[in-house]
């Protein structure tokens, strides 16, 4: 992929995340901070579908942005065809893994499987 496309994704994810993370944090502020983290409250959040969906989106955005950021740093640290290929695929794998792991939580908590 052209580097410009990757970096546009990097910036795009960041911008989109700004708004959504703000919502995520504001949710923590609707009540006393520690109450917002009580088990019932959190589960209730997950059951609220739009919020759960938003969490999923935030998860994807930040994983993509964060691991691409890490990829950039690693690409700059060391060069070499094999190394760079490993970094590129490695960061995709890491992104996928983190998203999968996070989605599992959202899915399971949201479906009331716990």
């Amino acid at each position, binding site marked *: 992929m052209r580097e410009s496309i990757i970096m546009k994704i990097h*910036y795009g994810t960041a911008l989109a995340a*700004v708004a959504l993370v703000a919502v995520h944090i504001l949710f923590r502020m609707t009540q006393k901070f520690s109450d917002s983290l009580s088990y019932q409250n*959190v589960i209730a959040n997950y059951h609220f579908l739009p919020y759960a969906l938003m969490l999923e989106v935030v998860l994807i955005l930040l994983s993509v942005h*964060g691991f691409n950021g*890490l990829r950039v740093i690693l690409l700059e640290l060391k060069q070499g065809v094999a190394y760079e290929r490993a970094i590129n695929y490695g960061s995709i794998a890491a992104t996928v893994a983190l998203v999968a792991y996070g989605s*599992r939580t959202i899915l399971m908590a949201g479906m009331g*499987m*716990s």
Partner: protein
Amino acid sequence: MAERLSNREGIRGMANPTRYGIERVAYWLQRLTGLGLLAYLIGHIYETSSIVNGKVAWEKMLELTQTPQGHIILTIVIGMCVYHTANGIRVMLGHGGIGVGKPGEPEYPYKAASLNYKQRLCIWVSIALAALAMMYGAAVLFGD
């Protein structure tokens, strides 16, 4: 060996923010906070995953974070998040060629137009916002 022959400054040079003005500090902080946030994100997702294991597991996990150390870490995360976001927006606009000055005929002694006061102001504002957010966050966290 190769590093020395090519005389690259290496990671230490890249990570040394002290020599070239505030813009270099801003760059360094952006990197550091980016990495910090990534680490937090991973930790946070691991943390929240405990919810699928029921109330007990969740509360046990929460307890882990509700220590003074946990609060300090969260305070730092808040600061990192605010700085990285605010400065990130500055950097993004800059990368698009916005606010980086206009080409002209520079006068000696040369001052680079891209290192202008608007950029520096934005950097300081990002730092200040992060500090404010950290104070607020600390008040909330420790206030509980």
